[in-house]
């Protein structure tokens, strides 16, 4: 059965990838002959053309696969999210490898190629599966760096990290999966040649922050960047006073003191390391314990006071203001005591959300839908989780404006959220205060959102689009981040799991 479907699907895919039969080939009125689309890339004479071919094939095959997914209802995690997951990725990988091999066959001698194009050639080699050639080319590049030219060395290592970890903005030059082993090779051999220790700290900082690693790690505790984090911490600790004074300049943070800069570097790195997951267990006993341990572990890494860390952990979550619309349950103010809740700031008028619809192209999936879909997944997994969407009024909704009121916006937003299966989520619609420039300009200037201001906890924490806060049953903020993406979804899941199981244990269930 499965095989038959595979063949049918295969045929469908073939048909979509390859031009259909010409129409009325010999009749005088035929229009639009469909082109013969196959191109012999082995005839290409320049490396950029190989880049172009790989770019095109990657795009086309990814699009085909995503459309098939979408046809079969698999939309969110593959179609919409920027990074395809590993299993389906192999389709793209094999198509791209074929093209890369054919085209790059004539450029297969890494020793003969111009060095200034290594950043194009090496990824294409990797796509073709010629790892040794890629490494040889990278080695050639690094060996060619003038030993006295530190700037060039740092820049080269930077580029190579981008290369091996798939960090270029050009999709054809983005390697999957990211190759930490190859980065390690380069850093081990050349990192030490960076004389300026601040520049070395910068290098380790960037490696520690690398996000894509999470895509392939089953456990967020196994982040390869961890070892760079350790080296960075060690270096930071051993800086001389003179070096410390140079920190603001080196890290482009001239308005801050060296201590603040140190704190900032380590906080962010630590966050991406998920450093506090080692203390995740403590969340099962109490939030206060968790918060204290988390802040302390950060503090020990950071070398500053625990309170100096700009995370909203341990704060009392303010009650949300505005119209509250609920599903089946009565509408108490949110967040509710006695419930584990997640508060998500997301409004139809946000960029990347519904905003203004002026044609059919704009009616469809967007980043808000993605977030709602993920929330739905959490709802399914954790039925006792309280979900609250915090929106604000804009004076229009999609393509409706006549007779629009905040109540109407709330109703429409309510129905929109419900259509994702989130009937039990609460919607808080804050009536946005605004003023208008005088007639005849009349542009609307929104005032600050009260809920956003309250949740910024004294301005220390910026509340933006799709920002979420996880709140325990006592109303204490456990954690918060911007957006639910592939990187932090497992993290969020683990936190909710811990809270829910704790609550269940308390209730004796």
């Amino acid at each position, binding site marked *: 059965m499965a095989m038959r479907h595979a063949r049918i699907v295969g045929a469908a895919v073939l048909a979509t990838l390859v031009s259909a039969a010409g129409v009325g080939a010999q009749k005088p009125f035929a229009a639009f002959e469909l082109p013969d689309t196959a191109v012999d890339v082995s005839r*290409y004479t320049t490396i950029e053309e190989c880049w172009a071919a790989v770019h095109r094939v990657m795009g086309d095959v990814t699009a085909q696969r995503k459309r098939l997914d979408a046809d079969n209802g698999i939309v969110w995690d593959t179609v919409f999210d920027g990074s395809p997951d590993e299993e389906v990725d192999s389709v793209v990988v094999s198509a791209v490898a074929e093209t890369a091999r054919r085209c790059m066959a004539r450029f297969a001698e890494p020793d003969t190629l111009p060095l200034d194009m290594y950043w194009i050639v090496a990824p294409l080699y990797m796509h073709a599966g010629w790892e040794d050639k890629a490494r040889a080319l990278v080695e050639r590049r690094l060996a060619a760096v003038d030993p006295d030219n530190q700037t060039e060395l740092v820049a080269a290592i930077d580029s190579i990290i981008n290369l091996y970890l798939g960090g270029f903005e050009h999709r054809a030059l983005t390697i999957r999966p990211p190759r930490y082993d190859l980065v390690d090779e380069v850093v081990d051999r050349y990192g030490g040649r960076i004389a300026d220790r601040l520049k070395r700290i910068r290098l380790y900082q960037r490696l520690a922050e690398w996000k894509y690693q999470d895509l392939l790690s089953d456990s967020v505790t196994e982040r390869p960047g961890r070892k760079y984090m350790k080296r960075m911490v060690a270096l930071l600790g051993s800086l001389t006073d003179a070096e410390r004074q140079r920190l603001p300049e080196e890290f482009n943070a001239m308005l801050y003191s060296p201590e603040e800069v140190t704190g900032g570097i380590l906080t962010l790195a630590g966050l991406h390391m998920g450093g506090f997951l080692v203390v995740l267990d403590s969340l099962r006993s109490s939030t206060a314990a968790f918060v204290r341990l988390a802040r302390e572990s950060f503090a020990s890494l950071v070398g500053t006071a625990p309170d100096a860390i700009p995370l909203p952990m341990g704060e009392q979550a303010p009650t949300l203001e505005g119209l509250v619309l609920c599903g089946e349950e009565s509408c108490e103010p949110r967040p509710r005591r006695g419930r584990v809740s997640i508060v998500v700031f997301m409004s139809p008028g946000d960029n990347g959300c519904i905003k203004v619809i002026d044609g059919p192209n704009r009616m469809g999936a967007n980043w808000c839908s993605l977030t709602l879909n993920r929330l739905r997944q959490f709802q399914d997994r954790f039925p006792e989780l309280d979900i609250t969407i915090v929106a604000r009024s804009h004076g229009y909704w999609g393509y409706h404006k006549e007779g629009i009121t905040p109540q109407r916006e709330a109703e429409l937003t309510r129905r929109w959220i419900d259509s994702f299966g989130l009937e039990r989520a609460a919607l808080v619609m804050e009536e946005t205060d605004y003023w208008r420039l005088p007639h005849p300009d009349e542009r609307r200037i929104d005032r600050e959102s009260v809920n956003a201001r309250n949740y910024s906890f004294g301005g220390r924490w910026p509340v933006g689009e799709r920002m979420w806060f996880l709140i325990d049953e006592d109303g204490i903020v456990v954690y918060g981040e911007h957006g639910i993406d592939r990187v932090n979804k497992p993290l969020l899941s683990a936190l909710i799991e811990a809270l829910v199981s704790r609550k269940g244990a308390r209730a004796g269930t």
Partner: protein
Amino acid sequence: MRISRRDLLKAGMGAAALAALPRPLRAGLGELGPALPPLVQSAEVKELALRAVEAARSAGAAYADVRLTRTRSRGRRGMADSERLTVGVRALVDGYWGFASSRVWSPDEMARLGRSAVENARAATLVGPAPAVGLAPAPVARDEHWTMPIEINPFAISPFEIEDYFFSLSAFVQRFRDFDVGFGDVDFTVQDRAFASSEGSYVTQRVYRSGAPLVVRYKDRLARTLDVVDRAGMGFEVYKGQPIREHVRRVMEELEEDAKLPVKPVEVGRYEVVFDARSIATLVAATLGQATQLDRALGYEANASGTSYFNDPLAMLGQFDFGTPLLTLTANRTERGGLATVAWDDEGVPSDEFVLIREGVLEDFQTTRESATWLAEYYARKGRPVRSHGCAAAPSALEAPMTHTPNLVLSPGPEALDFDAAVAGMKRGLAVRELAVRTDFQDLSATGAGMIVYEVKDGKRVALVAGAGFLLRTVDLWKNLVALGGPESCRRFARVSTKGEPAQATYHSVTAPVAVFKDVTIIDPKRKA
């Protein structure tokens, strides 16, 4: 029914492998066929054409002709973006021309168009009797066909190849920091044409048109258009047939050098000026090309874009002297790669090459079968036959043919002079790249601006001049021609000829060398009186 990931995986892998195969994928999936034979060579099209002419004749036309065209275009992302069929019939009745056109290729429509053209011509007789229209003789061509010779048919290759090419060129430029490239409105067009006349001609043609100017930009400050690629009567070889990357690289280096020059505001005055080939082509088209259309010169365009300073053609032919023996301008519809190149024009006249201006003296005009007869007296004096120079053209069969500028060639000078050499030989003056001009309604004067204007001192470019405007008077300009570049400095560019009511536009090519003029007036165009 949900399909499992494994199934998708398998299907996808198979498909992906297939997608990368280089062989044309035809076996078992439907035969696309080789590049189709030109539609117009089919018997059906000939049948339609003859029916239209016959209908016009039956309705009373003294002369009738018909054009059928099929035009296909695709853009640089390779897909056939547009396709049009058109047909137009002309009929000459009692000294008046009638015309009818539409998009329908059917026997009934051919008959309707034939009749309609005649009715339209007849309606004009209400204005009063007209002098008989003479048509210069043209050889009758029966069942002949011509296909524009090209090397790479953009409609026969994979659109992916075209797409990859432009991506790779863009990638090449972006490898160099601060540079950017623009391809303009690149498209590839193929037009099949059939022509039949009541004199018994039936000819078919296939012409191609590819390319667009390519602009390299530096830091959003300076920009240069490549002079080796422009729209042409060619296939994809307009790009692939030459080392574009080398030229781009050279232009990038020159832009970097230019960016180092200080920028000065314009100082008005009169200067000696070196113009690059593109500027000269622009000047030729604007001041000479349009002015030598005979219908325009005689006042037939007066209600549209204007008249010509050649306002008494018969008196001026052989007499009007620009005052410089360096100026020789020839016209043709024969050169390989020319945008106006055909085997027969829109009246079935075989394409021609002829001299418009010889050593500064006006020698001929652009003519059609009808307008050639208006110069009969002149041709008789010269002992030349009265023949159309084949300048009848229209964008498609939907528009009635008019005198449109053919390909123009400005003869180069004898010495090997190019832009750099001309600059090196200049003591004090300006050097201009990519002049753009707008003429007045008699082509007597023009204002212009250059893309890049250098101040030259002692043979060196010492500064960039910002905001310079050029004030040109056609006759003075050419009289002040000091030197022409050599053959190596010649380049070919695309120009548009727009005329008629309603306006119709056709392309032609202009080949020109660099040139040096003296006493060119430079103004500040934004300065008010």
